[in-house]
């Protein structure tokens, strides 16, 4: 609605459209609550400049909430007690802005908003300076840091040895007994891995514990995952003899955070998908981006403590100008976003894609760099959702080959959006292709190629 006002692609003034704002909402309830606040009624003292919007929102209490949004992050600040981010007030404010409800000359930023914005700008700049520094972390004691890293590596090594022992015991006695032993044994082993500061191993062990209860065929799946865990243990124990990129991948898989060390890539990024997966401890948000000029697909991860929405939120279908720093390591698509991510106007087209066979080839190739990959981002072009006896699949338009959808994707409402969008005709679908099948995340119809339809 409002995005057509600025032609300059690099201008900061391209404002979020209402659709993009709604796509930022962490859940359906926030979306609704936010759209209700997208009218002038509850707002006062609103204003905006090129990169920020602010206003007072009348809430339940006597003092209104102070809401301010930095649209370049985006980042939000609000006086409300909500644990969601962005909260409904931030969404409402952005919607009001999208609907031309806030004029730039309304009022200068009040102190409370100006302070927060200045604080953010300051941090962004100092972050820039830090990353611009030739030797990051030079201020800390390098010797102490090295000793700390060595101590942790030694702990992980003993954890990996212990895990190897557990796996060997399990195989000696037979997986059948694992079905009876129950979850407790695994939970205890997972706790040992947490003690060993190897969260990647701990996560794998927890998943192993869930497999015996996962339905028919579990012994095969359990053997596969035990074998891959064993592979990771062995790889860690031999990490000093592995090629550097692969060793980095192994360290990441074990759970060591490695800094994003790649060469930053600036592009206009199309937001393909954003979705959360939560367990009792952590909410993990995955955001897929596609570089429209580099053709590069990148994954942003953002984490929130249990029950809290992760900070980073990008609207699906938006085109953002910004810099991504890729993580190194073989078979990795993860990247870190730069401080400024600014919406730009421009033609949006789906990523180039191929037939279903090529998607599996891509997954297979990626396993060469990271054998622990469960799936790989691919775009299928010219595919038709079709129903087979076992469930839905995506078939090449020539009707020969097809990829089954993962069981989880079969039961999501997004499946019906995909089927409706196709109407029995070929569409382009982005998703994750892996050994469990294909998880569709976004789709484009040839009639409306500029419209990214989220499927999750």
């Amino acid at each position, binding site marked *: *609605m409002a995005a057509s006002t600025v032609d300059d692609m690099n201008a900061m003034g391209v404002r979020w459209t*209402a*659709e993009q704002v*709604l796509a930022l909402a962490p859940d359906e309830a926030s979306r*609704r609550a936010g*759209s*209700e*606040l997208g*009218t*002038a009624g*509850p707002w006062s003292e609103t204003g905006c400049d090129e990169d920020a919007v602010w206003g007072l929102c009348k809430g339940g209490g006597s003092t209104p909430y102070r809401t301010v949004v930095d649209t370049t992050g985006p980042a939000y600040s609000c006086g409300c007690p909500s644990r969601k981010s962005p909260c409904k007030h931030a969404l409402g404010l952005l919607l009001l802005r999208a609907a031309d*409800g806030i004029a730039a000359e309304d009022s200068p930023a009040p102190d409370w908003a100006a302070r927060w914005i200045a604080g953010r700008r300051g941090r962004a700049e100092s972050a820039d300076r830090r990353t611009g520094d030739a030797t990051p972390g030079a201020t800390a004691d390098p010797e102490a840091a090295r000793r700390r890293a060595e101590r942790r590596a030694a702990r992980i090594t003993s954890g990996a040895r212990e895990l190897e022992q557990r796996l*060997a015991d399990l*195989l*000696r006695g*037979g*997986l*059948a007994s694992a079905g009876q032993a129950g979850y407790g044994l695994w939970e205890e082993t997972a706790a040992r891995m947490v003690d060993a500061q190897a969260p990647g191993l701990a996560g794998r062990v927890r998943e192993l514990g869930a497999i015996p209860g996962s339905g028919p065929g579990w012994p*095969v799946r359990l*053997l596969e995952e*035990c*074998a891959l865990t*064993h592979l990771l243990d*062995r790889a860690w124990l031999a990490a000093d003899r*592995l*090629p550097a*990129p*692969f060793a980095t991948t*192994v360290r990441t898989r074990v759970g060591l955070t490695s800094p994003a060390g790649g060469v930053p890539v600036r592009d206009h990024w199309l937001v393909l998908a954003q979705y959360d997966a939560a367990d009792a401890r952590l909410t993990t948000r995955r955001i897929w981006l596609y570089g429209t000029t580099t053709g*590069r697909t990148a994954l942003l991860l953002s984490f929130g403590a249990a029950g809290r929405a992760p900070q980073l939120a990008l609207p699906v279908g938006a085109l953002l100008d910004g810099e991504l720093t890729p993580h190194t390591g*073989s078979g990795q*698509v993860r990247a870190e976003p730069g401080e400024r991510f600014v919406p730009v106007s421009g033609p949006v087209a789906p990523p180039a894609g191929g037939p*279903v*066979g090529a998607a599996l080839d891509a*997954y*297979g*190739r990626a*396993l*060469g760099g990271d*054998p622990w990959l469960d799936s790989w981002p691919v775009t299928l072009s010219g595919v038709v959702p*079709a129903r*087979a006896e076992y469930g839905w*699949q995506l*078939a*090449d*338009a020539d*009707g*020969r080959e*097809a*990829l089954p959808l993962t069981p989880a994707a079969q039961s999501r*409402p997004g499946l*019906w959006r995909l*089927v*409706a*969008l196709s*109407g*029995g*005709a070929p569409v382009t679908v982005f998703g994750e292709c892996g050994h469990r099948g294909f998880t569709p995340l976004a789709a484009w*119809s040839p009639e409306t190629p500029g*419209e990214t339809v989220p499927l999750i």
Partner: protein
Amino acid sequence: MDTPTTTSTTTTAAASVSVPGSGPASESDEAAARHWEELVSSALLGTDRRPPAGLAGSAAARDLPGALLDAAAVQTVRRRAGLRPGPAAPLPEPAPEDPRAPLPEAARLRLDQLLAGRAAPSPAGRRGAAPDLAELLPQWLALANRHGYKASPSALPALLDAARARTDLRPQALRLAGPRGLWLARLNPEWRFALRGTGAGGGLPSPRDPEGVRALWDEGLFAERVALLAAVRTEDPAAGLALLASTWSAERAEDRLMFLDSLRAGLSDADEEFLEEALGDRSRNVRATAAELLSALPASALAGRMASRAATCVGLDRTAPEPTIAVEAPHECDAAMQRDGMVATPPAGRGERSWWLGQLVEAAPLVSWTGRFGGRGPEEIVALPVADDWQGELHAAWCRAAVRQRDPAWSRALLGSPAVPPATGPGTSSLAERAQLLSTLSVEERARWVASFIAAHGLSEAFQLLGVCAVPWAEPLGAAVIDALDIAREAGSYPWSFSGVMGLAERCLAPEAARQLDSLTARPDEAEDRSPGAGDYWSEAFQRLVSTLRLRAAMHAELTPPPHPAAAPPAP
């Protein structure tokens, strides 16, 4: 993003990752499958009990579990890397083309928003200051259909879900969903409801396709035939009558009644002959319906017969000092009267003669009374005193006649002045009957009358009358409602006493009224004699009203095809 193709050979399993997953021949695939089966059964039973064949003798025999896991890792990665697509199931039939225009961008987003709002209802109880999106969905759908748009494909699942949950949305939602919506509904059992109606909706032949119409009329199910007759009648009343007449005598009595009822639409003097014949029908209900339809045609022979019967019962009392209506109720209900649709036996508790009188006057053409009362017009006639307590009976019958004959002059006279309290006015004090009388007036006159009524009597009795006013409310009705709400607030009432009218106002006030309302949304200072807290609730209720009106204005603007590319958003 290239990855190394080799890794160190010193790590037994990790190195094997680089082994290409695809064997050149199916033989090696088979061998691999056998090998894998072997590994699984050994793992399941335990290497102590069942050492894996092929590994037992090798150098790794000392660490059998490790050797098994090494081999399993190779197999797993190899299998995953070599995955091939399966055969495709038969592709679905493509959805039929839908030639309608797609929704404008903003309207498409609005629909998504309205549908999402439906799915997440606001917290129970307090309605808050924000618009009730679910209440706007019917309006939005009707408007979009009036413009002839089709829903965007990706919105169809939510649209079908909405129609599934709310039957009142179904006709409009399914129309907007169109052929692709039906195509989709066939694939999901949850949306089966959408297919049920197709016999009566999408499946009808065009009324201008005589062969299709004839085929369906002769062979269709009852519901299909009713829908077909209604469609043909709307398009061409004479063709509808001819269709019905062609099979009339062969239809069952219940069916005849329903078919006859379809003639209400487009009723004209051309139907008289057919209806007059139906007065001799075997079924009493069919006869009564035919008589009712004939009496709505003031020029019909039946109306004439009724007029002369009524004239013998109602007239001016020439002996009275001032002009007065004298009533002499009928003494019998003979066979001819019964053939003309009169029911001889009164309901329990009513006298025979007044019952007959009511039916006579109701069926007599209103135009005939002017002649009967010396050239007096409806107002004058209604103003005449009626002798012997017959006024109530007589006026009530006139009210029914005015509604049946859609006579605005008589309706106006019977409604009387809106300023007069309903209990003392002419005609009827029943609000339901007044609403019916109002519905015969023009849209503007209706709005004017109800506006004056509200100005005089407030909102408490206006709900039913507002219900028959056209949307959006024409001025001065909108202003009258707003003033009355303001007065109610001033008087210290709580807004929920007016929640019915508030809800109507949100849906029916013209969006331009928002400007007039702005001053009312402010929270007033709490005065001592007010109901505590009422001011806040009123301010909230008015805020909701204003934001709903703004939203409706935006909805209209978004759905109206722009005269030039950049349609400005509605001014606040």
